[in-house]
């Protein structure tokens, strides 16, 4: 709550909330005290549509170790996916 460590990026994607999909165009990444998960500091991901950022927000808070594990898996999946698509193209 008090680190104010915050990073923001524009993205293109969709998110599901309240059983419906909505377009998502913004992601904030925080490192701070979490609201819910049981750890001192967490990585918090806040996805939203900037046309209605408050009501469109889809949020996630995970331990730093979990964040690193996800980053690793995303990079692995990206590398495998790009290899497949490169072969097709």
């Amino acid at each position: 709550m008090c680190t104010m460590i915050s990073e923001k990026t524009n993205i293109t994607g969709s998110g599901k909330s309240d059983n419906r999909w909505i377009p998502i165009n913004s992601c904030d990444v925080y490192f701070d005290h979490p609201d819910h998960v049981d750890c001192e500091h967490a990585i918090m991901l806040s996805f939203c549509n900037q046309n209605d950022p408050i009501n469109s927000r889809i949020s996630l808070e995970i331990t730093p170790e979990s964040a690193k594990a996800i980053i690793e898996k995303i990079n692995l999946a990206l590398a495998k996916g790009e290899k497949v698509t490169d072969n097709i193209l």
Partner: protein
Amino acid sequence: MNTYNTHDYEGLIAETVKIKSNNGDEVNAYLAKPLIEGNFPIVVLIHHLPGWDELYKEFTRKFAHHGFIAICPDLYHREGNGSPDDVAAQVRSMGGVSDKQVIDDILGASEYARNLSNNNDKVGVFGTCSGGRHAFLIGCSSNKFDAIIECWGGNVIMSEENITDKQPVSPASLSQNLNTPLLGLFGNDDVSPPPKEVDEHENLLKKYNKEYTFHRYDGAGHGFMYHDRPYYRQEQSVDAWEKIFTFLDKNLRG
């Protein structure tokens, strides 16, 4: 903590009210006050970074239960309405709210409460986390308050690279201007502020011979009084509430 007799009548009213910020903006605030006769001190609550949430409304009613007119303005009111954590996320995404705006809202809340009947014209300020920082800042910026409670205020000591347009001054650099008794509550396991920063904070208060009391709890970290969060520490929290009410009774009553 039981401070009442079971024979006593007890009643309070708690509701959302519209206040006028010192800058003229209309802002929502949560007001809780005793229904019994008497002249009650005022406590203005400055909510934390997670927003104008249920915890802060509980805190507001707790102060009223202990015989204070308690008022907590929604510092994020201008950014829109929604679930408090969603509003807080939006505020955070925008880099927070400005110190000047917060001070204006606190002054507005204080003025609103001073205009209510049954107040004794004494005003205390209570804040945690970013609100703790704001509490100290307002104690150094205004002479309209009679007691300041700063709970684990992060960024009271700000390095040059953390200075922004919204937070243009490191509150610690204003320590010389503090003219109100200060109670500080901190957890020794906290990393924002870490014990080293609390030391620096305290050294400045000593240097300028300010009236202050710091309590620093072992086995407690950031937000140790938040009973809705995993880092709640019951023993330290109970003790801290006792110290808060003792401090306020001393400085705001009689």
